[in-house]
């Protein structure tokens, strides 16, 4: 659904960053655990350490970008737009439909009663 695509893109990016922060801590723990072993797997160690460093730099770059965007876009004023008027119009339209359905069911009931009699 493309309804909130623009807002969701940035929020989704921030959620990815949250996951990446978890991965950073995971990588750090793996590296230290690997170092604590008697026989270390050097390739795994290098890979995890590289992943840790890359993730930290990526998180920093992404968050800096988001803060830079907010500095450009924020006005400090509260947003006063709303969708209230169209919501009210839609609500009235749905009420009209309900009313029409009610009246039709009355007519149908009357016709059935007349047929029974």
């Amino acid at each position, binding site marked *: 659904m*493309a*309804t*909130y695509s*623009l*807002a969701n893109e*940035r*929020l989704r990016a*921030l959620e990815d*960053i*949250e996951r990446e*922060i*978890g991965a*950073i*801590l995971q990588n*750090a723990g793996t*590296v*230290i655990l690997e*170092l*604590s072993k008697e026989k270390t797997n050097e390739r795994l160690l290098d890979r995890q350490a590289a992943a*840790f460093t890359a993730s*930290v730099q990526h*998180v*920093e770059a992404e*968050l*800096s970008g*988001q*803060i830079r965007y*907010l*500095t*450009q*876009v*924020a*006005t*400090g004023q*509260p*947003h006063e*737009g*709303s*969708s209230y008027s*169209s*919501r009210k*119009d*839609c609500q*009235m*339209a*749905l009420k*009209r*439909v309900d009313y*029409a359905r009610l009246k*039709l069911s009355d007519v149908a009931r009357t*016709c059935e009663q*007349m047929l029974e009699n």
Partner: protein
Amino acid sequence: MAQQRALPQSKETLLQSYNKRLKDDVKSVMDNFTEIIKSAKIEDETQVSRATQGEQDNYEMHVRAANIVRAGESLMKLVSDLKQFLILNDFPSVNEAIDQRNQQLRALQEECDRKLIALRDEVSIDLYELEEEYYSSRYR
């Protein structure tokens, strides 16, 4: 890109604080991780006995690991604050969201009215026949 508008002091201070928190937390993670790796190095000559040095290193690693976790949690809080700030202050996306919502609701309203008008036309034909039947019956 448009010139940067003058933000109110509070918003500008807030965004600067976000930057500072980001830099501090990232620095904390990197520094503490580097220090843990450094202290894992086994040295032949120590100023205190090996057991004492081991205990000290153990304690230092615990503290540094706790610092890394604290910095990670602080980063998560920062992301949460940024999400909140984004939702409240990212006017382009808020405007687009409101426009999309208005369009959806207007489309639904127009469809309801269109179907009601079609229903009215159909029912008026049936009502005409019902009226004819009723007024030509003995029940009128």
